[in-house]
């Protein structure tokens, strides 16, 4: 039987699809697909390696000319600072957003590091000795700020790595989350100010000669410390590398290391190495930001595609009822056509001058056979609906209602139907086939949408659940459509009866057989404020 095959096919397509969809959603709930959680692909690893190698090559190429003096380029420091400010701000914003999604303190640390970098560039540029006259040729303030900047950034990365592994997976309530972001931003702002104040203050408070000697004496130590710190951060990142973000942070650290090496190597300002060092770090930061942004966009596109695929899957599931109805109608029309044609033929044979009774008899036999065939078809539909007793599980109909409302959400929105749900939270469980009841509810909701499609306003779908004594659970689906003509109210559950211009008229018939197969009943009545109310009552399992 063709239609049974289609029905089974539909069911088969149903369950794995449904399960797959749940599985994906489950995975999504557990771990959002983000740059900070997603492992890097091979291509990404190769790209990162290529960038690091390029930076190294550039570094090696610069070394021979590193000490060649270039002279003071007035625009360099402001331009560099502005670029660093913008890049660091955007990167930190990107990471703060990741933090707000993943709720991981490690991300807060690294985004804080970037924000600090962004903020510190302002005093860094302003205190640059040669920018506003030669007020501070020793460069103490500027030097201190530079060092603190280079100190804080690797520290934040180290903090990120260390916090990453002992993550207590907890969901921050959103007010706390935003508070944390604001607080850290404010704290960093204050910290940057403080650093600036201290750095400038130091120069005025201490005898410049002494300070100069301290800084000078510590220069080598400072450099070693910064270099070691950056190396340590890089090593840590390498040992605990997992995500796309880890990969690109490694690239940034390489950029930083190259910058430090060049600066240590040349040891003075305004030579090729000094400029090149800044440029390399800027380039690596920019590349990383570009990559992070493009990865985010690609990730978004991939997710959007999979969400689309999932919703198509859902729509296909909703279609099952239509497909089933269509195939039933097709199978039903075959014997019906045979009956009608045979009856007409028989009438003609009878109406001949000499009635051909043999032909009449043959036609009547055919009519009888076709009628039996139609009966068998109906028996098999009922059997199909009844068959799956084993799929019955204790169900909370409230959950079912919520689930179906999510499934039909788009359809409801598209038709601008507002949904009012009143669920009795103390509903006993019902032993039922989830997919079948889902189909019933989807069908009732679709009918309600269709009924309200012609009406202007208001379009309200009201779904209620209630305890129906004795021992029953009632679900009602009410619409504000044009209601059901009392003359046809007795026929609407009949197979092939339809008032729709497009429709097979099998939906309600199948709904009723499903509900009756569950020892329940499906009824329709007129709504209080017009429209139709479909209600079904199912027997409850033993009260929980």
């Amino acid at each position, binding site marked *: 039987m063709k239609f049974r095959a289609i029905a089974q096919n539909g069911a088969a397509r149903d369950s794995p699809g449904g399960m797959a969809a749940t599985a994906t959603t489950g995975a999504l709930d557990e771990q959002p697909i983000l740059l900070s959680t997603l492992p890097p692909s091979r291509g990404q690893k190769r790209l990162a390696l290529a960038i690091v190698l390029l930076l190294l090559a550039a570094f090696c190429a610069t070394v021979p000319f590193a000490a060649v003096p270039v002279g003071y380029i007035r625009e360099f420091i402001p331009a560099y600072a502005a670029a660093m400010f913008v890049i660091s701000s955007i990167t930190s914003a990107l990471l703060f957003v990741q933090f707000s999604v993943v709720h991981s303190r490690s991300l807060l640390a690294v985004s804080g590091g970037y924000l600090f970098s962004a903020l510190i560039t302002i005093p860094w540029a302003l205190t640059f000795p040669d920018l506003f006259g030669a007020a501070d040729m020793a460069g103490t303030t500027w030097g201190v700020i530079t060092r603190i900047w280079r100190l804080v950034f690797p520290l934040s990365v180290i903090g990120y790595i260390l916090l990453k592994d002992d993550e207590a997976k907890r969901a921050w309530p959103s007010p706390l989350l935003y508070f944390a972001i604001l607080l850290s931003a404010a704290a960093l702002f204050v910290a940057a100010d403080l650093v600036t104040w201290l750095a400038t203050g130091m120069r005025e408070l201490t005898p410049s000669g002494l300070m100069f000697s301290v800084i000078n004496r510590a220069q080598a130590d400072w450099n070693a410390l910064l270099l070691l710190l950056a190396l340590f951060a890089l090593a840590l990142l390498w040992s605990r590398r997992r995500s796309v973000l880890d990969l690109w942070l490694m690239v940034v650290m390489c950029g930083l290391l190259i910058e430090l090496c060049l600066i240590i190597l040349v040891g003075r300002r305004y030579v090729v190495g000094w400029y090149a060092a800044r440029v390399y770090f800027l380039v690596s930061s920019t590349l990383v930001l570009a990559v992070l942004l493009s990865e985010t966009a690609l990730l978004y596109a991939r997710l959007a595609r999979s969400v689309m695929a999932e919703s198509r899957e859902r729509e296909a599931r909703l279609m099952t009822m239509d497909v089933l109805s269509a195939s039933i109608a097709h199978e039903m*029309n*075959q014997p019906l056509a045979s009956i009608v*044609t045979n009856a007409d033929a028989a009438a003609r044979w009878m109406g001949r001058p000499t009635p051909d009774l043999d*032909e009449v008899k*043959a036609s009547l036999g055919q009519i009888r056979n076709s009628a039996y065939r139609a009966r068998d078809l109906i028996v098999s539909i009922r059997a199909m609906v009844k068959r799956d007793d084993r799929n019955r599980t204790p169900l909370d109909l409230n959950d079912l209602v919520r689930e179906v409302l999510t499934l039909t959400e788009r359809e409801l929105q598209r038709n601008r139907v507002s949904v009012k749900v009143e669920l009795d939270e103390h509903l006993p469980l019902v032993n039922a086939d989830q997919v079948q009841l889902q189909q019933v509810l989807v069908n009732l909701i679709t009918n309600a949408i269709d009924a309200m499609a012609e009406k202007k306003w208001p379009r309200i779908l009201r779904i209620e659940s209630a305890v129906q004594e004795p021992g029953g659970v009632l679900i009602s689906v009410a619409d504000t459509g044009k209601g059901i003509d009392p003359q046809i109210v007795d026929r609407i559950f009949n197979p092939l009866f339809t008032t729709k211009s497009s429709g097979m008229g099998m939906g309600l018939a199948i709904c009723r057989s499903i509900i009756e197969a569950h020892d329940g009943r499906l009824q329709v009545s007129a709504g209080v404020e017009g429209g139709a109310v479909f209600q079904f009552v199912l027997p409850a399992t033993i009260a929980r």
Partner: protein
Amino acid sequence: MILAVATVTYLCCVQGFSPAENSPRLRPYVEDEQLQNAPIISIIDDDESMRCAIKSLVTSLGFGAYTFASAQKFLQSTHLDHTSCVITDLQMPGLNGIELQKSLLAQGRHIPIIFVTAFPEERLRARVMEAGALGFLSKPFESETLIKLIDKAIEAGRKT
């Protein structure tokens, strides 16, 4: 003669149709040897009961009728040359109705085709009508509609 007139009158009363409109239906029942002269209708449907029902209706009208369970069988048969009208199902295993129409046209045979289907689709209807089908009926169809289409097919056949 009197009998014939009486029959005509009776049929018209019963069916409520004027004689002019129904002339082919009033053709007397033909025995096998006469069948050769009566227009032949070929009926193709994979559903046996439907096939027999249409055959019964068609022969009650006085036409000759051949039935085929598939389009291939019809195309291979010797009745192809003297078929005045084809009544065919649309969805059939093997060659479907549309392919049958195509294949007949490819052979240069412009036999009037009436499609009957339990799965009417506007797209398919438009397609077969475009290709020159005589009619497109959805099952269950009114016998009168089919009869009118057959009459039209026979009329068209006479003219050419």
